[in-house]
């Protein structure tokens, strides 16, 4: 192998390289998969973790923010937790390894490790571009997850909960999900620390919605206070497909959630909603790259962020409208409640519009709680602390309520209230 001149590795980069060397022999994969893993790691080694000089990582300098990476500890034992909603069908991934699961009627499910072992996963282990650090890391290290196929015409009544629970160590998971033509399902992807000990997590979900499929996909990130969470969702939306994608961040020390969405079928509709509750000394970055690639598609993107303590938040929202994607209708909004002087939230909306007959807009606000609202509630006998909590709750509840499913709304509002109770 030719060794090119490379930058001196940071402790985190060194730890990743060492973790790879230590594990490569026992990570699942046939020759093709191992070859791909090697290439991706090599690529990562050469480029290093991205810094602020890389445009896509400008506000999240991963090289300096990621101080260290714990060693992989695949044998740490953790237990599954109660599902978010009572009737959910659980698919758990414990410490990065898919558990035995109960079959779900009408849905094809297989552990992702199987696709690695037989090599069918090799083609998907790619970095989306040269700066796709998450693609490189996850492609190198991915150990398991679930491949889910909701066959054409299938309606799955109860939600499916993919539940990734971990303790200390590293977790690298992948969840390819296909929603066949005309199918209908709700999936919750949940990431949770069981012990609060530091973990390094990378996870990629690949959602494909075929013609007329309707899906609700909720990502609930509840990592521990010392965890690094690098998440990526790759979405392809087919003709007349409808996706409601909700991303809720209520945890983690260093979080990057990338949403790489390609709207590829005419008549399709994307509803993207996000709630970020940020507290303590944490860094949370949501980066959206949305391509409206064909004519006659709609999307709305709304993010609500609440910043406490010394937390830092980032939202980068890029919408690209392809030259022939006429009649695109896209509306993006990012609203932040900044509740402390030491907190920060950076918003970078970008519209690249190459078609001429489109409606495309974005708006961003950063504000404190409305004093008039606070006074009104207090004047009715509600003490200030409680009144503030009500108003913060209201600010994000508006988004959650768009889910419509009462049980899901109630469950998520419960998660949000519990977080606010602890941090506000």
């Amino acid at each position: 192998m030719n060794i090119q001149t490379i930058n001196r590795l940071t402790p985190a980069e060194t730890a990743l390289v060492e973790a790879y060397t230590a594990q490569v022999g026992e990570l699942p994969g046939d020759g093709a998969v191992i070859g791909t893993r090697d290439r991706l790691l090599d690529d990562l080694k050469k480029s290093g973790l991205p810094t602020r000089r890389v445009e896509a990582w400008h506000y999240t300098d991963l090289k300096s923010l990621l101080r260290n990476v714990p060693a992989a500890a695949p044998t740490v034992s953790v237990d599954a937790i109660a599902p978010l909603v009572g009737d959910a069908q659980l698919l758990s991934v414990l410490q990065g390894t898919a558990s035995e699961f109960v079959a779900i009627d009408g849905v094809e499910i297989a552990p992702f490790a199987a696709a690695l072992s037989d090599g069918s996963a090799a083609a998907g282990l790619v970095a989306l571009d040269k700066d796709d650090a998450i693609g490189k890391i996850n492609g190198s290290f991915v150990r398991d997850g679930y491949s889910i196929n909701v066959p054409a015409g299938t309606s799955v009544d109860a939600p499916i909960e993919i539940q990734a629970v971990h303790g200390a160590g590293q977790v690298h998971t992948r969840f390819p999900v296909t929603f066949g033509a005309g199918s209908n399902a709700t999936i919750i992807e949940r990431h949770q620390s069981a012990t609060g000990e530091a973990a390094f997590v990378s996870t990629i979900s690949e959602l494909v919605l075929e013609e007329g499929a309707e899906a609700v996909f909720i990502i609930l990130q509840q990592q521990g206070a010392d965890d690094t969470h690098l998440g990526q969702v790759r979405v392809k939306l087919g003709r007349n497909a409808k996706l409601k994608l909700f991303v809720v961040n209520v945890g983690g020390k260093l979080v990057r959630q990338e949403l790489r969405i390609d709207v590829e079928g005419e008549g399709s509709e994307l509803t993207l909603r996000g709630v970020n509750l940020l507290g303590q000394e944490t860094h949370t970055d949501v980066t959206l790259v949305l391509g409206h690639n064909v004519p006659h598609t709609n999307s709305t993107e709304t993010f609500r962020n609440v910043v406490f303590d010394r937390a830092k938040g980032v939202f980068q929202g890029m919408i690209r409208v392809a030259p022939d994607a006429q009649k695109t209708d896209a509306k993006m909004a990012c609203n932040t409640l900044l509740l402390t002087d030491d907190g920060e939230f950076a918003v970078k909306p970008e519209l690249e519009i190459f078609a001429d007959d489109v409606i495309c807009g974005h708006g961003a606000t950063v504000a404190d709680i409305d004093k008039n609202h606070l006074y009104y509630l207090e004047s009715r006998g509600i003490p200030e602390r409680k009144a503030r909590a009500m108003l913060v709750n209201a600010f994000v509840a508006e988004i959650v309520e768009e889910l419509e499913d009462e049980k899901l709304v109630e469950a998520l509002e419960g998660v949000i209230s519990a977080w606010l109770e602890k941090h506000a």
Partner: protein
Amino acid sequence: MLEIKNLHARIAEDGTEIIRGLNLTVKAGEVAAIMGPNGSGKSTLSYILSGRADYEVTEGDILYNGESILELDPAERASKGIFLAFQYPVEIPGVATMQFLKIAMNEQRKARGEDELTTPDFMRRVKEAAAKLKIDPAMLRRPLNVGFSGGEKKRAEILQMALLEPQLCILDETDSGLDIDALKIVADGVNALKTPDRAVIVITHYQRLLEYIVPDTVHVLYKGQVIRSGDKDLALELEANGYADIIGEAA
């Protein structure tokens, strides 16, 4: 019940003095009307009584049941029984009206050391009070004041007042924006609350509301002072002659 003594107050932000030596006494069981031209300090007085932080009291005192309330925050004053029906109630998206009512009632009860209401008890009270004010239950399922018409907002304020059962009710231009039917409903709502141990302060520009909520005393506010007090005939005199004469006398 309420004794305002030589009150001076200003806008905290820029120091503009609005209330300049105001004296006013309102007894339990009394309905007191406060009238006055625009900019005389009527609404400011109502905000100061409720404890709004945008105003600073620089001199004088406000005694409520014999104790100064200047150091109390708005929630504490509310729990002690002071209620202000706003001229312009704010819309608060995301806060459900019913949830708001329940929290407000229970927080006040907690502050007074009373048991919280059970849900059925709460629902019954709201249903009864809403029916009296001809409030459509659908309105109560909406976020607080959001999308309410001007008249609906005023009725919602009176509903809150009925449920919170305050001792001192302050109505800030509750008649503005109401048609005659709505005015009657609101006035009936206020009259139903009149008891010997409760006082009502009605701030208004017009005699019209006072035909339905008949005052025991009428006070004319001008440049932050009460320049004339009288009985309900004073309101009629103002209606007929305007404020010019009285202001002229005082000057």
